[in-house]
Structures are given as structure tokens and as C-alpha cells.
């Protein structure tokens, strides 16, 4: 069940430092939304505030609204743990649990939450998730081996399998392919195209071609200068952003004429 997310007037702080200012954006369900922009402009910060991962850092806080299918995620009485169950996340660096096997990593979302599930159901779920992440054929013979024995690209796909195994509504990906070779990158891009049938996907990337290839909508973040807050400069359909952007800054960034 993909869900739509409406963000309005979002300000994101690290202590007293305003890192991202005044973001208003709508993220469509069953689509891939790409976020691009120079380093340090607040893409990761914004992404992490969607599933309330931002606030796990000491002093970090958020003002404004993030509404998912009518429910304000920052409303009073909303448990961040519940939010994170509905909005999964894949990190820039693959981070499988080193003490667990490949199987246990995929099952981690359920196991760690003490969900009661029969062995055969769990087997099925693990296989489905690994197939979903395009990893099944590579690991089906060594599900019991430690996850740290996989290559970087396989680990990243394992993390994707782990994230989709809990069946979230939204999947956030922070530069999921930045440490991967072109083949693994392609595998993950294909995967996103498949996954968007079921999930709402938001991806941060530094790779313009990737954004152009996989996304329907693209948001461009920029920063006026060091110490200034990052802002969402432009949010438009990907084709428009890459052919005929509204903003001069977007065009400069995309064509590489960036200060």
C-alpha cells in the first residue's frame, strides 16, 4: 500500500543550526521521487526527517508538518517507532547486522519486533524479499552464512531486502548506489522500477543520469552559502527538470555550471 506524503513548511534543526528551511512538497504514491543537489545542502537531513530518524541525534528537531495519507507524522501522540515501521530506509553505506546470517538479516525486522510468525511463512517472506531485492539467486545456497561475507553491492541489496521485508508503505533511499559498481547500480535501479509498483520511493542521488532514469519527480535542493540553510529550489517532473527547468540555479547545477 503505497502512500502519499505531503510536507509543508518544514524546518529542520541540528541544535540551534537551521539545516533545512521551509520545504513544501508532495510526494506521489507508486512513483520514484529523486532528490538532487550539492553536498551539504540537506538532502539526507530532509530524508531522515520523513521517517523521524532525524530526531535520534541529540539536539536534532523539526518544525512543520509531514502528512502521510492524512496523518501528521509529527502530531502529538504519534510514536516515531510506528512511523519507522511504515517508512523504511536504506542507508548510503550498507549496514547489515554483522552478528546475523543473511537469512536473519532479512528476517530482522520481524524477529527484532518479536512478531509471531511460523517458520514456513518466514521462509516464504525471506525468499520473497530477497527475490524482490534481486539477490535470491546469489545467496539462496548460503542463507545461513554471515551477512558480512557478501560483497558491498550484495550487502546493499540485502539491506533493501531487509527494508522491504517489513512491508513498509514508503521506502527512503539515501544514495543507495553511491558505493557500488555500474552493474550493481543497474541492478538497484531496475529494482526501484519494480518496487515502485508497491511502494512510494524517495531516493537521494548525486548521479543525474540515475535520477533521470528512475524517477518521475525530481527535487533540487540548494544552499546559498556555508552556514546557510538548504532549501528546496525546484520540484517538478523529472523530464521538465532535465530539459527545461524553471530555475536558473537548477539548470546550472544539472549542466555542471555550478559555482
Amino acid at each position, binding site marked *: 500500500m503505497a502512500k502519499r506524503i505531503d510536507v509543508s513548511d518544514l524546518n529542520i534543526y541540528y541544535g540551534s543550526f537551521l539545516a533545512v528551511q521551509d520545504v513544501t512538497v508532495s510526494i506521489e504514491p507508486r512513483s520514484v521521487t529523486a532528490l538532487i543537489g550539492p553536498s551539504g545542502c540537506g538532502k539526507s537531513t530532509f530524508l531522515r526527517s520523513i521517517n523521524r*530518524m532525524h530526531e535520534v541525534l541529540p539536539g536534532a528537531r523539526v518544525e512543520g508538518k509531514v502528512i502521510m495519507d492524512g496523518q501528521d507524522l509529527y502530531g502529538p501522540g504519534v510514536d516515531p517507532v510506528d512511523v*519507522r515501521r511504515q517508512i523504511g530506509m536504506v542507508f548510503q553505506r550498507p549496514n547489515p*547486522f554483522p*552478528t546475523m546470517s543473511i537469512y536473519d538479516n532479512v528476517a530482522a525486522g520481524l*524477529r*527484532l*519486533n518479536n512478531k509471531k510468525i511460523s517458520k514456513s511463512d518466514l521462509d516464504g517472506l525471506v525468499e520473497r524479499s530477497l527475490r524482490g531485492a534481486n539477490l535470491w539467486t546469489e545467496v539462496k545456497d548460503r542463507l545461513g552464512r554471515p551477512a558480512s561475507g557478501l560483497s558491498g553491492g550484495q550487502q546493499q541489496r540485502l*539491506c533493501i531486502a531487509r*527494508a522491504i521485508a517489513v512491508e513498509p508503505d514508503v521506502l527512503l533511499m539515501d544514495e543507495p548506489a553511491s558505493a557500488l559498481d555500474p552493474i550493481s547500480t543497474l541492478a538497484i535501479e531496475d529494482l526501484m522500477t519494480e518496487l515502485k509498483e508497491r511502494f512510494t520511493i524517495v531516493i537521494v542521488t548525486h548521479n543525474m543520469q540515475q535520477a533521470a532514469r528512475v524517477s518521475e519527480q525530481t527535487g533540487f535542493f540548494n544552499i546559498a552559502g556555508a552556514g546557510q540553510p538548504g532549501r528546496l529550489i525546484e520540484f517538478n517532473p523529472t523530464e521538465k527538470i532535465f530539459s527545461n527547468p524553471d530555475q536558473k540555479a537548477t539548470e546550472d547545477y544539472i549542466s555542471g555550471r555550478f559555482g
Partner: protein
Amino acid sequence: MTTSPMRVDSPTGSTPSGRGPVRQTRRLPRWAAAASFAAAIVVALLLGQLRDTHIALLALGAVALGTVLLYSLSRAVEGPRRATDRLTTCLVYSAFGLAMVPLVSLIVEVVRRGAPRLDGEFFSWSLLGVVGEGGGAYHAIMGTLVITGLTTLIAVPIGLMTAIYLVEYGTGRLKRTITFLVDVMTGIPSIVAGLFAYALFALFLGPGVRLGIAGAVALAVLMIPVVVRSAEEVLKLVPNELREAAYALGVPKWRTIVKVVIPTAMAGLATGVTLAIARVIGETAPLLVTVGIANATNFDPFDGRMATLPVYAYYQLTQPGVPPEFAIDRAWTAALVLILIVMGLNVMARLISRFFAPTTGR
């Protein structure tokens, strides 16, 4: 560009080291070092023949002479830079050798004097009704195991939870205060811990109380800060990414700690606990005032005096009775057993960290 404080300047200032084409330098043959020291030892032995000198002095003289010989040789043939290098090497090795002297001589002495009584009787008999020859330390070994086990039961949960609080939850002043108090606890003299436990139990049970549990409390006071410190270091090493990975799956914080952080740190935690046990198992003073000594085997830490290995060794040595040799032999054997236990614990700690470390290899 090395400007480290470790650098040793050659006394005559450095010769400009040749950049550019590789300079052909003359080197001493490989056996030069061995030869210098062999010569020094021969000279020392000859001197020892002439005048009666203590063996330690002779050894010192031989090392000093060998160093001087090698340095001068090297300086004449290889130049000041290599000579300085050789001198430093000699100094470092000598310092290491000097540091090993007490350890090696202690072990040799304890083994030499403790080995004769390291027999079946020692491990199966207590001192009940033993006068003179024979007897063993079964009761003391059991007492040490019971009291150390209790200590571990008290100190590990408290220490672990404190460490978890400090690493995972603590912020601001409370965290700083606890860290400071743990530091202070680390420095508590062991006799003070013993007196504290004694006073605590005397408060409830009257003066003169001697209980195994009181000894365990005293040892726990000594053990807790060690456990906190080591657990804190290990927990800090768990990458934050793993915590975030669990949070992002909708796992609550406490469950993340229990199911992800602690298992990841397990090897380090177990190693730390094992070393902490090794640290307190040989404590004598606090047990002397809280547990006392007994001749019979007593498994019940809540009822009366118990014997423990260190206190046993102490009493066998200081109050051997007549004739004294047998008790003194037992004291040495008790010391040997204690050393063996501590070594065993250290080996165990290494095995634990080897086998239970998260597998990273392919």
C-alpha cells in the same frame, strides 16, 4: 618529515643524508650484534672469576658493555645515524628485559616452591584436623569460586547496566557525574572496600560478623568500575549505523540495545568481564576483614567464615604452626593455583574474543 618526540638525535648532529643517487653505505655484518654481546659476556665472566661479584651486577655490566661495544663499532663503520639506531634498539631491548625480570623470577620462584604440593591431596582435602604434613586447599578453592561467582553475579549486571546507561542514554550532568564517580571508584584501595562491606554488614548483624556474602560485596565494589569501564569502551565501538539500521526497521531503542548492540559487542563484553574477574580473584585484604578464614569447607556464603585462596596463603605463611615447613609449602602451592587460575582466565578471555567476535571474513 618526522618531528615525533620519539626521535633520537645523534649526539654529533646529523650528517646530511644523501638525496639523489643511492649512497653505498658500509654495513656491519649480521652477526656483529651477537658478537659484541658475546664478547661482553665473556669479559663479564672473566671479571666475575677475578672478583666475587653478584650475578645481577655481572649481567648488567655485560649488557652495558655490549651496548657500548656495538655502538662504537657501528659508529666507526656505519656512521652516526645507524649507530644511534643500534643504541636505541639496545636500550629498548634492555628496558624490556628489565621489565621481564620481576615477572619471570616471580613465576620461576612460585612454580619451584609451589610445585611439590601440587598433588591430588591438595585439591581434595581441606585443613580440617590437619596438623603438620598433608592437608589441602579444597575448602579455599571452593570458597574462592563461590565468593568470586557471587561477586560476578552482583557486579556484572550493575556494571553492564551502568555502561549501557552511559553509552546509550546518558547526557549532560548526570552522565558526567556517573563517569566521575566510576573514576573515583576505580581508585578505591581494596582494604577500604573491605572495611565498607564489613561496616555495612556489622550495621545489621553486629560487630565481628564474617560472611562470604560480605566478601562478595567488597569485591563487587572493586569489580564494578572495571566492568563499567571495559563495557563502556566496547559499547562505544558498536557502529552507530547498526543502531540506525534497527531504528529504521521500527525497532524500539531498548530492543535495539538488547538484540543488536549487545550481541555485536558480546565478545568484547565477555572478555572485559573475564578480565575483571581475574582482577578481583586475588584480592586478599578485603576478604581478610569480611570473610576471615576457616579450616573446614563451607559452601554457604550466608553462614559464617569461609576460606579463600589468597587469605589461605596469607595465614599459612604468617601462622604456619610447628613445624612450619608444611604450611609454608601449602602457601606457595595456593599462590601457584591462584596464578594458574588468573592465567586460565586470561587465556579464556583471549579465546572468547577470538571465537565470538562477529565474523567479518569472507
